């Protein structure tokens, strides 16, 4: 069992929280990283910005652009992470090209060397994930796979099986970004996933408020909150206020019983 798996266990007794942060988005991004870690995150997803974030909505596109404009790069973000080790596990997310460009093996080793424990590559679906998956395993990095509301049952099972660390349940058919309401598809997907795997199931995409996080957590083991946090950061929030937002999410999640009927699956 990897460290990530140890930390993100279903049975940790509370709903899990994974805030998302674009690496290099501001000069003080590692201050945010630390503040968020201290505010009750169970893991942090750190995005390595890519020029063409095809699965991201406007907010994270803007964050990526800002980071790239500041000169952010894979090497830079990893160096920052290396210098700013935090107690909470870090999961890097990025697009396939950045991983494949240097070769999956080298890329995964570089992650591990920077203390990164997990990896999300949204445009590497099951069929294309083979080599990266092997490389990650060799580097002791968990490659988490994504499932979506449109994923049919057999495929869902295979995704859950081959996913490492956790399973990323894309709550809706759409891009990242804040939404007024939690998608109706979220609960059903989380339930379906929990019915086929023991790995923790994280709902992500569109979870924008503590209230939505709480609703999402009824059916999932944890939530990922990205755009809502990044919007605050892009609007000028300092590390104390991003941490404040994360704390409010933490509180909302802590109000949800950690073991619910959701275990029965969907």
């Amino acid at each position, binding site marked *: 069992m990897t460290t990530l798996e140890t930390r993100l266990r279903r049975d940790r007794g509370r709903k899990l929280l994974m805030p998302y942060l674009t690496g290099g988005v501001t000069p003080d991004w590692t201050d945010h990283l630390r503040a968020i870690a201290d505010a009750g995150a169970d893991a942090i997803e750190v995005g390595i910005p*890519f020029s063409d974030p095809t699965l991201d909505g406007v907010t994270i596109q803007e964050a990526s652009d800002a980071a790239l404009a500041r000169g952010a790069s894979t090497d830079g973000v990893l160096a920052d992470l290396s210098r700013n080790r935090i107690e909470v596990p870090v999961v890097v997310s990025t697009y396939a*090209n950045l991983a*494949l*460009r240097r070769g999956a093996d080298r890329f995964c080793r570089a992650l591990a060397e920077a203390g990164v424990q997990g990896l999300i590559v949204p445009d590497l679906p099951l069929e294309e994930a083979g080599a990266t998956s092997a490389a990650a395993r060799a580097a002791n990095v968990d490659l988490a796979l994504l499932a*979506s509301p449109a994923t049919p049952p057999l495929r869902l099972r295979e995704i859950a099986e081959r996913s490492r660390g956790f399973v990323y349940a894309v709550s809706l*058919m759409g891009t990242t970004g804040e939404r007024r309401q939690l998608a109706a598809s979220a609960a059903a997907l989380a339930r379906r996933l929990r019915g086929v795997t023991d790995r923790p199931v994280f709902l992500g995409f569109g979870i924008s408020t503590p209230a939505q996080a709480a609703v999402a957590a009824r059916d999932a083991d944890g939530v990922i909150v990205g755009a809502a946090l990044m919007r605050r950061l892009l609007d000028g929030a300092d590390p104390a206020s991003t941490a404040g937002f994360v704390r409010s999410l933490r509180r909302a999640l802590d109000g949800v019983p950690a073991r619910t009927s959701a275990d029965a699956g969907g």
Partner: protein
Amino acid sequence: MEALALRDPSAAPVAGRFGRHGGRFVPEPLIAACEEVEAAFTEAWADAGFRSDLAWLLSRYAGRPTPLTPALRLSAELGVTVLLKREDLTHTGSHKINNVLGQALLARRMGKRRLIAETGAGMHGVATATAGALLGLPVTVFMGERDIERQAHNVFRMRLLGAQVVPVRSGSRTLKDATSEAMRHWVSATEDAYYCVGSVIGPHPYPWLVRELQAVIGQEARHQCAEQLSAGTPDQVVACVGGGSNAAGTFAGFVETPARLVGVEAAGGAGAALGEVGVLHGFQSLFLQDEQGQIREAHSVAAGLDYPGVGPEHAHLRDLGRAEYVTATDQEALAAAVRLARAEGIVPAIESAHALAWVVRAAGTTDLPTGSSVLVTLSGRGDKDIATLMAYLGDEEAR
């Protein structure tokens, strides 16, 4: 085995691969949609009824077959026999209509209720708007803001045809970003909407599907060459390459012949000639990128070639050495467009003019020896480019 997809054009490439390229690098929410398109097209393409509906539209509506015109004056000037495959004469004015009619029929067969598309030069957008109007399917076209400015003519055409044109303000505000935005929109609309991809790019099955639909160019040209050339086939077959659909469609007719295949990219958007292996927009191929893997912005006066990558089949043909990829500069393309206008009375799209520019440059060299014959696909007409060409001419004459 590698080139299988080319030898038997109607078979889908194994796992969507062209050699090491291609694939389906899409986020999980799009997997089912891609599979649905693949299944539907595989079935439709094997259905004589679908093929005859398409053939009907291509001939009765879109003006196929297009002529193969010998460029007599240009040939005399260059010392090589230049044959022009006249996609500029199709309805809407470019080869894009071949692809779009097939996909729109497919969308209807799949029960989709609307079409989405990305566009660069606007020709694919106009073609999609056209097919949508024809089949009664609403159309949304994503187009980079910069392209909206420089291809205003086509933006007006799309709107006239009833399509909604959505300006894309991210990144380089050109084709690359329009494609990203179309994919983002598609994710949220797979149920309802059919994504009508405009070139041999995107996740499997698109590079194969679009190649199949464009193969009509090469098939016709092959027959026409057999009639018009004493040698039966041309020595060289040349087409411009943006994503690579007109080239792929042309090459499909000649890949089994001894003809040399040449794809001409814009010097500032030369994925095949200058790119490196990467993944974008759902497929692996050759892309302009920095050492870190960030995609570089393409820069070309031809909005339709202003794309940093190239379809996976072209990357594969380059790997195999079966096709070569060269470049032409903005200046060369503009000069070639004016030259064709004045020698043959044909104003080509600036995209197509890249193919001609290479022919003009290469004629008489070992690359294209005097006395040889060359088929050039004129992918489209230059109406959309008149303002750009006039500005260029003004500058030239001012010199």
